[in-house]
């Protein structure tokens, strides 16, 4: 376990009682968590190898309470780590012992659905899926669909600019959010954007999306809701090799076809997911694509015919269309449970680099070689249409050597993505996990510009300060 945390501020730890006493009048009694047992529930997120029990946990019930807590922490020099549902895979919500956690879980209401304008105003703690559930009866949905969508919150999605399987067609969070209400570290409440398609001035909304809790705390959002397609149909394509599957993806896009999703699984991932979800995945192939098309039945037939023609040119061995809503659900259940299903077999870490799709075959091959050389099993399951890779590197958590080696390999794979022309993270965020690799992708000048922008919002580095930027050389 090699990722360092900043040394806790002893002066803050020594003043804990005083700080808790100052926070208490700012919140309803049940919204301030101070006991060790209860605080421990917040010690980590989905990047579970690292844990720190926070000073306290505040669960405010309004924007005004968030403002009050932040203003107090600003005056007192107390660090604040924002938390949605705690599903971050990069450690974005992991606390520090000298920080309070500010959880948005009690801000969980859908405030207004505006069908004529095709927008919804929601509080930051609502889950991703509940937005879609609140508009689906009218034929609408909220597009970004991270695998954790049952649990993850819109506030966390905005913080990380989350993606999902269907963003090939519908875009990621930043393309689907029109406004946020946020609170700055000094307690100032800001509205960025709103219900119109754009806002005056600099695109501060675009800056906030994906800022990983470094610039402020989001309490509300206005999101676009989109009309659902008439129907959707996923099709499984089995290939002997990952190279053939990768080349097929490039040919489909090159032919001017943008399916709503193109998901890739290698042999290991297929076996793991099929054992879990019984989705009818072909077990005797080397790689599989789930390609989903949308529209009316004749439109889907026509588009699939073109895709199948292309797949045949790449030696596709198995083509299996979903024949029912149940089969469709099973196919997606298998894909979306890939992480959970892998977790039943072994401990794993999941990487999230993106590469140009033309480099997929090469990067997959090197991934296999690097993992094999170090004696780790690896399963690859990812969004092929946009090159966002997700190698799951398996290890034994009870063996410190195995864990350290997996972590090391993960970082090597991310460097491989950058070397191939891509980036460290496509949708999970930098968090603590990739923080110390930032200089591999960015120059010192690049990072300094980002940090100067950060300092406009939080010059004292109180907001989620252990994350995103390397600990040394900050300004």
């Amino acid at each position, binding site marked *: 376990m090699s990722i360092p945390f900043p040394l806790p501020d002893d002066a803050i730890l020594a003043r804990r009682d005083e700080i808790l006493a100052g926070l208490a009048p700012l919140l309803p009694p049940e919204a301030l968590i101070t006991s060790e047992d209860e605080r421990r529930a917040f010690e980590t997120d989905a990047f579970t190898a690292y844990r720190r029990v926070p000073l306290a946990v505040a669960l405010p019930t309004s924007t005004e309470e968030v403002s009050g807590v932040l203003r107090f922490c600003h005056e007192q020099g107390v660090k604040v780590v924002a938390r949605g549902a705690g599903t971050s895979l990069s450690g974005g919500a992991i606390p520090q012992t000298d920080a309070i956690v500010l959880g948005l879980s009690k801000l969980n209401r859908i405030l207004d659905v505006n069908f*004529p*304008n095709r927008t919804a105003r929601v509080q930051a703690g609502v889950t991703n899926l509940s937005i879609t559930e609140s508009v689906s009866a009218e034929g609408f949905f909220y597009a970004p669909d991270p695998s954790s969508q049952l649990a993850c919150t819109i506030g966390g999605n905005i913080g990380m600019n989350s993606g999902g399987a269907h963003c090939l067609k519908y875009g990621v969070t930043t*393309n689907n959010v029109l406004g946020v209400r946020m609170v700055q570290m000094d307690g100032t409440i800001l509205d960025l954007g709103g219900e119109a*398609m754009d806002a005056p001035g600099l695109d501060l909304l675009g800056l906030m999306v994906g800022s990983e809790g470094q610039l402020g705390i989001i309490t509300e959002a206005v999101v676009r809701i989109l*009309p659902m397609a008439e129907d959707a149909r996923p099709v499984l394509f089995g290939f002997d090799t990952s190279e053939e599957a990768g080349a097929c993806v490039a040919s489909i896009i090159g032919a001017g076809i943008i399916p709503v999703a193109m998901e890739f699984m290698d042999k290991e991932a297929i076996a793991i997911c099929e054992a879990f979800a019984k989705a009818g995945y072909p077990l005797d192939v080397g790689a599989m694509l789930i390609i989903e098309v949308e529209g*009316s039945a004749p439109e889907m037939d026509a588009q699939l015919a073109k895709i199948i023609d292309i797949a045949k040119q790449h030696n596709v061995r198995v083509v299996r269309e979903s024949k029912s809503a149940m089969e469709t659900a099973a196919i997606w259940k298998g894909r979306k449970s890939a992480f959970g299903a892998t977790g039943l077999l072994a401990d794993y870490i999941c990487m999230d680099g993106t590469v140009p799709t033309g480099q997929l075959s090469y990067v997959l091959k090197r991934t296999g070689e690097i993992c094999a050389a170090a004696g780790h099993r690896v399963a690859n399951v990812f969004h092929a249409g946009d090159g966002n890779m997700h190698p799951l590197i398996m290890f034994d958590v009870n063996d410190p050597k195995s864990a350290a080696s997996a972590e090391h390999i993960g970082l090597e794979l991310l460097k491989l993505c950058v070397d191939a022309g891509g980036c460290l993270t496509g949708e999970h965020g930098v968090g603590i996990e990739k923080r110390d690799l930032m200089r591999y992708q960015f120059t010192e000048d690049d990072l300094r*510009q980002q940090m100067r922008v950060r300092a406009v919002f939080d010059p004292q580095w109180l907001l989620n300060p252990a994350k995103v930027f390397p600990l040394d050389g900050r300004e």
Partner: protein
Amino acid sequence: MNVTTLIERLEPQSEQEACEIVKQARLDRWTLAIEGGGTRAGLGRPVQADAVLSTRRLSGITLYEPAELVMSARAGTPLSEVEAALAAKGQMLAFEPADYRALYGTQGEPTIGAVAACNLSGPRRIQTGAARDALIGVRLINGEAQAIKSGGRVMKNVTGLDLVKLTCGAHGTLGLLTQVTFKLLPRPLAQATLILDGLDDARAIAAMGSALSSPFEVSGAAHLPTGHDGAGAQTLLRLERDEVSLAYRAQKLVERLAPFGAVRRVDDEASAALWRDIAQVKPLTKAHGPAIWKLSLPAHRAQACMQAISENLGARYFYDWGGGLVWLAVMPGEDAGALRIRAAVTEAQGHATLMRASDEIRTKVDVFAPLGAALMKVTSGIKHSFDPDGIFNPGRMYAGV
């Protein structure tokens, strides 16, 4: 300020040369007005600068991978060159980059860098996103003469703060863009426009809302209260598909729109011409006198807002983006109607940009909607973080920024 009175015109041929120029400007305390093709010089507050920094010689497509739907070009590359290269491979910039030569009465070639710097999107914004959604990477020279990058060439990238978004729509106030990278989409094989005649504004917005709430992926929704040719109100709805899908969806959409009246259909080039005119604001630019505003507002409040404005001002206007965008022409007068227009638009929870007016009016009237104190503080802070000496496009967006 008249460009010809400027003392110098600088045309770097490389990013490195541009860095040297900025370094020197910093030492000499010069300010720089950034210029691409010069076709939108009338957009924004008039800039008073010591020299023009032109991207004209920073030209050429540097990367184009059709199978990856991605293209990079140096900032001064003519938009026409980019669009021709993409069209040759059946692809496009999906947000329909706006060409405002008719609006400003200018010649010359708009550049790809200015499309990014001004975040200018056309009718398809309603369906495929704005320029800011398609821009995935930039290289930029900041006010400390550092060449920095943000984003990259891959579709999904959440590494670090998204400075790409900040630079998109900053109108060159944060630095000089030297290279921009956009994601692309395949060019649809066919298109058709369905036309409803004679609807009033409220019915038209309802009709556009119905179409945009359908599963048929309407890629343009505009309403011309006095019609394209002055003949009468027209509501236009665009579909862009392959032939099979287009036939099916046009039929379904006609059925859906039945409560709004009879539907006419025009295809292919005739349809494309209609949307080209809308993208270029042609319905309002035939006369050169009026001041022109761009209003961005929630679609469901647009009609009431326009009613309030029309009652007070002899205004001509049309809607795009299903009612979420209004182009408005008014007699220039003292302030181009700013007071009344901004009051009505603020009431509707939108904002108004003065797109065309004399330098005199644009110096006196806020071109971009004024920001509250807290937002202005952040905006000034960000400007300072990129350009501490205020070298680039001083005052282009806001006085002092």
